[in-house]
């Protein structure tokens, strides 16, 4: 492949949305209330829509016969390069919203920078997605506040969720080889520059929600290199089932 770095770079962006979209989508019919159920699946739909644009572009760059669906459905676990944060399971609603919030803050600031990319396709996708993702952030921030500043039980559940997921936040700002190459070409976003503002923004919302910002300095990593937590395998088994069982099936 001629443009391997760009291809890998696009997957690095898109896989996060695919895996988080799948997590949210699996709440269909299982949300804690009808409104939150619909909200989670609507966000899932937005993320899948964005993923299609990214994978179509990646398929074009690959220049062989692969399609967006091949990229989404037919890779092995180690070939997915999403961050560990987004593959964490829907343990309870506080956990689901904390995961969403910790990703949304990053996602929005990332897209705001990606809009300035020299690559016009990536810039257009970012510009389109920002409108959707700012709505996601509004929704997840709202739930952090409602549960954090809610009852004693909801506060404890949200604090546990933030504490549990905190270890996955630092990885958002790790640079891969593809990242470095694309930053050098003016196409990619330098994620290291987003880190400070990210933690400030997160802390501001946590403060407002009467939640403690964790102080742990030990962080997990590996997702961006394809080394995942045990949860991703199970997620992919479900995501890929139809394409594996009935190769090339179409709706």
């Amino acid at each position, binding site marked *: 492949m001629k443009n391997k770095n760009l291809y890998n770079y696009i997957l690095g962006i898109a896989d996060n949305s695919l895996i988080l979209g799948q997590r949210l989508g699996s709440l269909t019919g299982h949300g804690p209330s009808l409104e939150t159920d619909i909200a989670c699946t*609507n966000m899932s739909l937005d993320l899948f829509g964005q993923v299609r644009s990214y994978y179509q572009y990646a398929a074009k760059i690959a220049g062989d016969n692969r399609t967006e669906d091949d990229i989404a459905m037919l890779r092995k676990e180690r070939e997915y390069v999403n961050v560990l944060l987004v593959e964490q399971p829907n343990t309870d609603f506080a956990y689901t919203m904390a995961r969403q919030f910790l990703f949304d803050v990053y996602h929005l600031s990332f897209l705001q920078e990606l809009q300035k990319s020299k690559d016009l396709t990536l810039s257009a996708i970012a510009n389109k997605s920002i409108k959707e993702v700012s709505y996601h952030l509004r929704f997840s921030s709202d739930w952090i506040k409602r549960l954090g500043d809610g009852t004693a039980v909801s506060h404890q559940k949200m604090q546990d969720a933030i504490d549990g997921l905190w270890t996955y936040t630092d990885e958002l700002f790790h640079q891969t080889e593809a990242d470095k190459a694309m930053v050098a070409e003016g196409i990619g976003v330098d994620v290291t520059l987003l880190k400070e503002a990210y933690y400030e923004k997160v802390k501001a919302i946590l403060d407002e929600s009467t939640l403690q910002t964790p102080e742990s300095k030990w962080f997990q990593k590996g997702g961006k290199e394809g080394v995942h937590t045990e949860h991703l395998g199970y997620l992919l088994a479900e995501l890929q089932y139809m394409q594996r069982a009935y190769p090339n099936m179409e709706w």
Partner: protein
Amino acid sequence: MVSRTNKIECHLESSREVSIIMTTTEQNIDEILIPILEKVSDPEIPVLSIMDMGVVRTAVIEKDMVKIQITPTYSGCPAMDVIGDDIKSALKAAGYDSEIELILAPAWTTDWITPRGRKALEDYGIAAPLNAEADISVLLEGKRLVKCPQCGSTNTRLVSQFGSTACKAQFQCDDCQEPFDYFKCLK
């Protein structure tokens, strides 16, 4: 994610020439095609034609082929494939073959819904989008600005930020008690 046989591929060129098309906010639509396209509606909001919705960006006749560019309201809007199919069959019935492209830039905004489209939404029972500044306060600070499409009262409240489709939020009127959809503002 899995494909329909005839789904629309998003148009994702990055050449200079395309970038000019991608940055214009003006529609370029051949007048002959307008009456045909006005008969095609959004499958999820049947009273709203795709022309009044502002999703058709370009429609030109080149020899025997009509070339159409449409843009999605939301990235994941599942109606786009159906809209593409409906445009093709409407044009076929009028004697034209067509090619449909989905473009992402410039990104769709609720400002492109025509006044006639806004009226059709209201008549159908969906509150039309307010301006962007109003929208944030409506959603987050509980201000009562959205007008109930049933009784006209603004004594309404947000029930859920997400509604029956990606483009709508759920509201309820505290005067007539009717729940209704509000078309979210997108800029």
